[in-house]
């Protein structure tokens, strides 16, 4: 079944095969996974901070197991959009979220009846700046895992599996009880990814995860994000268009229209980069503006 049949909301009705193969960095895993089933449906989503409207009228589906990159200039609502998906916007005083975000299984993420803590277990998040707790590496796993009722005897195994997943196990296995703050920036960010993975989320949101890292560390983190394709649904905000090109299955371009951010175009990665339809998206992706 082609993507346009499974998901009529697609603006560019093309398959995902062959997406920017020639542009992938040599070390980055190839895009062999083809997402088709929707995972999360976003309907008329908008976010206001007091009188300021961060973004409005966002409608699209995120597909199961895909890597979706959100690009666009600063201040067009990408991060606010990400934070509204796992309801971190609830922590911001005066923030109002409109519209709906629902899982494919029919469960909504909006409304007072939703167990927000359980929702955040389903939708994990990794931030721009690595933010391990200023405690031991082990504690960084113990605190969230204990909170979500994982038995004590399973924690060490989960921690090892997730640290191996991000290539950190061999680097830290002899200092699990030392402070996580002693790790380098790139290691800290991989620890944060491992910590998010430990809760077995269905979706992980990445908010510019490489922008605070040096190019080498950034490359390593990027490859580990790319390796999640097919296992976890990934939504990543990035200002690095080359990175979006390398790892994303689909790309959404945010832009400010009438005083608020919105998605002006989205679709398969190669379509968006080679043949953008929206003039603003075209000029942004070609590096002419933004």
């Amino acid at each position: 079944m082609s993507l346009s049949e499974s998901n009529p909301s697609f603006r560019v009705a093309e398959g995902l095969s062959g997406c920017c193969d020639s542009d992938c960095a040599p070390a980055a895993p190839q895009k062999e996974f083809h997402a088709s089933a929707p995972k999360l449906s976003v309907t008329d989503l908008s976010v206001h901070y007091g009188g300021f409207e961060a973004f409005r009228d966002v409608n699209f589906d995120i597909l199961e197991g895909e890597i979706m990159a959100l690009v666009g200039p600063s201040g067009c609502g990408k991060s606010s959009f990400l934070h509204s998906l796992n309801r971190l916007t609830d922590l911001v005083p005066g923030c109002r979220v409109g519209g709906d975000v629902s899982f494919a299984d029919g469960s909504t993420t909006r409304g007072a009846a939703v167990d927000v803590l359980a929702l955040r277990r389903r939708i994990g998040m990794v931030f721009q700046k690595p933010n391990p707790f200023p405690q031991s590496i082990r504690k960084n796993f113990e605190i969230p895992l204990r909170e979500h009722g994982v038995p004590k005897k399973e924690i060490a195994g989960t921690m090892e599996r997730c640290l191996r997943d991000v290539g950190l196990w061999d680097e830290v296995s002899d200092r699990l009880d030392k402070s996580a703050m002693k790790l380098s920036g790139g290691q800290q960010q991989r620890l944060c990814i491992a910590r998010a993975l430990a809760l077995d989320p269905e979706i992980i949101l990445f908010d510019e995860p490489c922008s605070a890292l040096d190019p080498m560390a950034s490359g390593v983190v990027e490859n580990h994000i790319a390796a999640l394709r097919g296992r976890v649904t990934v939504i990543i905000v990035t200002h690095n268009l080359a990175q979006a090109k390398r790892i994303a299955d689909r790309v959404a371009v945010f832009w400010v229209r009438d005083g608020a951010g919105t998605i002006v175009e989205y679709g398969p990665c190669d379509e968006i980069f080679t043949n953008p339809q929206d003039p603003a998206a075209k000029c942004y992706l070609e590096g002419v503006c933004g």
Partner: protein
Amino acid sequence: MPGETTFPKSTVQSRIADWGVGLVGAGAAAVTVGVLGWIVWDLMAMGLPNLSWEFITGDVEQSGRAGGVGPVILSTVLILLCFLASAVPLGVGCALWLSEFVRRGSGLARAVTGGVDLLASVPSIVFGLFGMAFFCQVLGLGFSILSGGLTLACMVLPILVRTTLSAMNSLPVDLRPAAGALGLTRTTTLRQVLLPAALPGIMIGVTLGVGRALAETAALLFTSGYSTRWPDSIDNSGRALSVHIYDLAMNIPNGNANASASALVLLVLILAINLAATALADRWIKFRIS
């Protein structure tokens, strides 16, 4: 020579001004250290000949002119324990509530911090009178170590609230979203993430508070009383070191030598508590970041 850049040399006046500022700063530092040195020298010259193991452990004799300060030290430590047991939970609790459960800048937060600051500006003798009226008479605790400790707690509360609040406010801003994104409850976030991170700052506040409490005379005169007997319990009246020093210096003829020796004991006690608290906080900080 063409192309050669010349920089204007600094003028004689500006060099003299630089030198003058340095000299004034050094002078101010010398006066500060000098005053401390003078106090310590004076105390040592007067008190050291009287200081002995018998003085530290012995009974008070002839209203303090002879004998030692054993019961006074015990009363001081007991007053301090009563103070810590009541002030730390109250002060830290109030600050945590302000920082985590009340919206910053809201009317409620402003009213409570305003009240705390007002409390800080109340003279200690007023706390003494309040303690006598409320703890000794209304609550029926009488002149007792407990009344003294509780009165000190009221007096030092603002220091504890303010220092804990600033410790909480100076935590990295990304810890709270990091905890939120992992689905941690507010209680777990506070207990397992924020409090351990803020602990060194809170300990500095407690140390400052202890120093303030140990130095206090006026608030204890009317509450914990003058008794120089060995206290059996916190119901007993007991004389604090600061009260003992005041009494010897003001009311007892030929009491100055023992007043100086008692002051030396108080100085060493404060120094020991400060060093212990600083060492603990340092060890904690070293574990986290070095």
